[in-house]
């Protein structure tokens, strides 16, 4: 029941929470005593702990949260509307700006959606390259989330260590695509260029050094008494509620449901790799933290396998109608010039139809629902943004908890404002 938007509903939720939640302090004031005065507290829109622009108007009873009203949309950029006027390849930069902590996953997800619509088969090498880049993106996404969770609990050191590693991942991106944060990586039909020797070198060097740093980070946090006191049993959600709220990704897996798009609907040759899906039991902040840590290790496994077995061959599909020709050929070759012109002007032929494709983003199932009327742009494009969908559970998760618990819960859910608002 989505009743948490009204005061009546909030009371009901709090009453249920008192019965159900073992983590509510026994001395916490009973919510039936509504004669006491409540304090209204604005958490956000610009609060250092929200890591993005969104607001929560909290009703506080002392240190306890009684109810909350989330307001979002502060950086809404109408991507779905803009996408209706852009040719397919110009939509890639829009996807960058959704979950900007793991842009390559968004890019690849979008490319795969268009490839599915156009019926383009991507060669194995390109698929493996994509897997490497997507897993790097997942690692950098989780590094941010877990590092920041450390900062929000007062431990800055781990964050600094991890930022250093994220910087190295960005250098690999830079070597592959030329960009760091908003990568605009790859193309419809494959990658825009092969991995250079420098890129491979940097990747191999990073794969050697990173595990030691990650182990050190885990040693610092996983059994740290102070950290555990702050996160265990905080912001918990049951598997049933999580599913009802449409949770996906690490947040759902922390609640104990092993749903992972990479396994359930393998794309880009994920079926070739061996990896495990970590799951939690309680769905609290600690479980989310641990699931993300373990996913980093599993991503490393996938990258290692993909790099060792990287097939030889072309790095893009043989689809001249959709894949930009090399620039040199455009100057010398009539056909290449024609294709170049048609692709850049968006005059490629797209079939009429509708396609839904989803990838496992940093935060969960990132879906693209594309309706094409055969024109140069999508007729309708809808993004299934995991952040937008699971953030609505936030109020329910923090009701009955303290303000400091709310901060770490928000941090561990990894709500990225760009993806929340699109």
């Amino acid at each position, binding site marked *: 029941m989505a009743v948490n938007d009204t005061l009546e509903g909030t009371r009901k939720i709090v009453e249920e929470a008192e019965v159900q939640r073992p983590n509510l302090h026994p001395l916490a004031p009973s919510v039936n005593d509504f004669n006491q005065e409540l304090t209204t507290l604005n958490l956000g829109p610009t609060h250092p702990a929200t890591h993005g622009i969104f607001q929560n108007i909290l009703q506080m009873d002392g240190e306890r949260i009684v109810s909350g009203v989330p307001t979002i949309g502060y950086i809404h950029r109408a991507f779905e509307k803009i996408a209706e006027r852009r040719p397919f390849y110009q939509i890639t930069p829009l996807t960058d700006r959704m979950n900007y902590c793991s842009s390559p996953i968004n890019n690849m997800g979008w490319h795969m959606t268009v490839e599915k619509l156009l019926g383009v088969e991507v060669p194995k090498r390109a698929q493996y390259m994509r897997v490497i880049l997507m897993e790097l993106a997942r690692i950098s996404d989780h590094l941010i989330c877990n590092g920041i969770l450390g900062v929000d609990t007062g431990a800055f050191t781990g964050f600094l260590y991890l930022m250093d590693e994220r910087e190295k991942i960005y250098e690999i991106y830079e070597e592959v695509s030329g960009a760091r944060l908003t990568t605009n990586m790859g193309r419809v039909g494959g990658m825009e260029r092969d991995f250079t020797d420098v890129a491979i070198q940097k990747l191999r060097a990073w794969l050697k050094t990173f595990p030691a740093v990650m182990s050190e980070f885990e040693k610092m946090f996983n059994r740290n008494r102070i950290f555990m006191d702050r996160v265990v049993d905080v912001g918990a959600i049951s598997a049933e509620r999580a599913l009802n709220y449409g949770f996906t990704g690490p947040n759902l897996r922390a609640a104990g449901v092993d*749903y992972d798009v990479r396994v359930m609907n393998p794309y880009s040759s994920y079926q070739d790799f061996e990896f495990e899906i970590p799951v939690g039991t309680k769905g609290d902040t600690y479980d989310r933290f641990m699931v993300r840590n373990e996913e980093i290790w599993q991503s490393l496994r996938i990258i290692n396998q993909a790099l060792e077995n990287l097939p030889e061959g072309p790095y893009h599909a043989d689809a001249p109608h959709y894949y930009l020709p090399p620039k040199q050929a455009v100057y010398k070759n009539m056909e290449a010039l024609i294709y170049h012109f048609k692709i850049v002007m968006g005059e490629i032929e797209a079939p009429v139809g509708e396609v839904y494709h989803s990838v496992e983003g940093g935060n969960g199932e990132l879906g693209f629902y594309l309706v094409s009327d055969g024109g140069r742009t999508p007729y309708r494009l809808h993004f299934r943004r995991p952040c937008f969908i699971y953030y609505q559970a936030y109020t329910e998760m923090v009701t009955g908890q303290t303000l400091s618990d709310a901060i770490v819960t928000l941090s561990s859910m990894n709500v990225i404002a760009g993806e929340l608002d699109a």
Partner: protein
Amino acid sequence: MADQNESTPAQEVAAAQDPATQKNAQLLALLHRLFGEDTFTDVEEPYGLLTVTTTRERIHDIIAGLQQDQELQVNFLTTMCGMHFPDKEGQELGMVYHLHSLVHNVRLRLKIFFPISDPVVPTMTDLYSTANWMEREAYDFFGIQFPGHPNLIRILNVEDMDYHPMRKEYALEDGTREDKTDLFFGR
């Protein structure tokens, strides 16, 4: 869209043995058994995803029935979104629901269409908490009303906006500009 080419019998047999096709057939049979064959029109499988069109009178029953059903357990609402087809007389607006069975890994796309003069759709918030913001988004973008929704206000756009921007009549750029011809850029 579905393959337009003539398929040979061998291909048909291969398609029938494909697990995804089998699951879709099983799901379609389930839908027909639970809700009657004439509830669904336009049964398609674009890119392997079973897509059926139904009416807004039945949509709540169908989603509730699928949520309760124990055979395929289609009880995860992946996403829902509005649509606008200005040229379809009397069926201008639409809602598209993507459902997923996490146990049996089969997806279903449900569509409903209704006139823009009467954009009223039953709410799914009593079945799925996740429908809350999705319906607010559909209201915000397309002006679709969901009676019974606990808090149907705009979600992404500002409160005092007086139109629903994702409708097709609102072109992205100022339509009165004459220095830019629209011949190549955009619809």
